[in-house]
């Protein structure tokens, strides 16, 4: 429950984004494969750059900066949740969107950790419960 004030920060964030003047469209974003973003902007707007923020709000967050173009091609570096943010000349975020970057194949390290954690936890639960409930 710590940092409940994040709520208020989110409200402020929403209020700054409510006047967004651009929109973002993506198609099939996959790690390590060329992907495309379309940014729709008003005709007289001046945009400076686009950032792809991988795992936003986390300690593993990582940013990929791209020059602004209405139609962008780039290669996503990491799978997972990412945020596309469009900046104006004052380095203010004009619009942003959260996207999911697909895995390029099966992430074996993830499968191994999953199997390890699931086996340990389920086996531990099963064995200890069986012992505990023997007398019931």
């Amino acid at each position: 429950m710590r940092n409940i004030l994040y709520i208020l920060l989110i409200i402020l964030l929403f209020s700054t984004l409510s006047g967004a003047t651009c929109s973002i469209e993506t198609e099939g974003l996959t790690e390590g494969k060329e992907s495309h973003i379309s940014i729709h902007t008003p005709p007289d707007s001046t945009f400076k750059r686009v950032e792809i923020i991988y795992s936003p709000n986390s300690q593993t967050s990582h940013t990929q900066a791209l020059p602004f173009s209405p139609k962008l091609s780039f290669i996503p570096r990491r799978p997972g949740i990412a945020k596309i943010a469009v900046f104006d000349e004052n380095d203010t975020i004009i619009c942003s969107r959260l996207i999911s970057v697909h895995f390029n194949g099966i992430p074996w390290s993830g499968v191994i950790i999953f199997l390890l954690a699931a086996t340990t936890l389920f086996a531990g639960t099963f064995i200890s419960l069986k012992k505990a409930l023997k007398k019931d």
Partner: protein
Amino acid sequence: MRRAVWKSKFGFLMATAGSAIGLGNIVFFPANAYKFGGGAFYIPYLIAMVFLGLPIIVMELGIGRIFAKGLPETMRKTSGFKGEMTGWFAILNSSIITMYYITILSWVLGMLFRTLGPLWHGIPVPAFNLTGTEGKGMTNFFDIITSYKTLLFVVAVWIINIVAIWKGTKTIEKIVKVLVPTMWVMMLVLILRGLTMKGGFEGLMLLFTPDLSILSQVSVWKGAFSQIFFTLSLGFGIMTTYASYLPKDSDVINDGISVTFMNCTFEMIAGIAIFTLLFVFSIAPQASSISMMFFIMPDGIAQFPDGTVMIFGVLFFSLLFMAGITSSISLLETAIAAITDKFGMARNRALLIIFVVGTIGSLFFALPNVIDPKLAVDGTLGLTLLDILDHWAFSNGLLLAGLIETILIGWVFGVTKLRNILNETSAWHLGVWFDILIKYLIPITLIFILGSGIISEFSGLYPNKPTGVHYLEYMALAFWLLFTIGGSFVLAKMKGGENA
């Protein structure tokens, strides 16, 4: 008066697991796992489970079974006045947590009712400058916390709790035997739904795929050790109280292992359910449990195919409510046991006192937003007060209670004595490693976690300065210190009742 006992081992295990499995398992663990590198978080998490969680839970259950009393009386028998004072400190500290926990549960209840309709539409909330387009969960949440109905929900949740613990283990056992297995079934339904959506499997992989580079950061280890401490409901006195209702020959070592594994397994499956939704609907969790519970998850569920939105909304908030209730009743039973054991007070009288004082306390946390919602916006009361007290009582108080308890049991009562007693009735035998953990490694770890937190306080007692009332953060700290340390001193000094 003869002390109540659990009717069955299954009832005891469901009660302790229900206490450990709370709102934090469903929303806080996934938020932490996301924040600390997905699968990489599991490595320090599992290490913390074995080296911190298991020994403390066995210790807390062990002293409860041996002395068959609530925490303050048990601690008095282990280490005299300072032990009893530690026990009362834990009880008073957890009573603050109980009060705002029930306020949060009343918001969950409000959201649960809204899943039947209004939650799936944005609502304008002028007091917070929300037009209704910002997010369905968020606007409904702010509408609820500023509504007078919240006060009725607070009273309703208190009544539900009091009814649930009315006859102690008798009623608690009946309730948890139904609610805890139901929570597992509900969570499995949520997992199945998440995994069968397009991209669901990738959500699962997102949770477990490690970013190992993060393991060199101290904050990740601190996060994992804190997570284990909080998720197992340690430092509250709950485990000691629940174990005090066990027969003398109970194998509490195995019980501790069962509860720990059940809790962490539930946490894992909750993580899977939440992560599948995060990936499918491209949602980035925030650091706050409140935003995960009330903003992010409802907005994710709102994107489910038509016809299933309401079903899964009801499912999710019912699950949260059940998880919250099984935890809050354990908090209340801990306080009741402490009072009746010390003062020999009749249970009904103790229940009435707890109900009246507790309801006023919970209303105190809910009321500011209802009376003047803008109080929360300018950082004066409401959520800010809840946040500051949560910071002291939850993030610091529980660790402090756990630390002193571990030192007193390890060094004053004697951990070897405890180990020998517990080994007599257990299928698993604790070795010397248990003594080393309780006497040295766990206190050092807890001192490090607490100490690093206190050092960070020097950069500002509370990072987000309240603007409405000057020095609110200092006043809240003074209140917490006075209430817990001052209160525990007075209670420990007081003479016990006839039946004590």
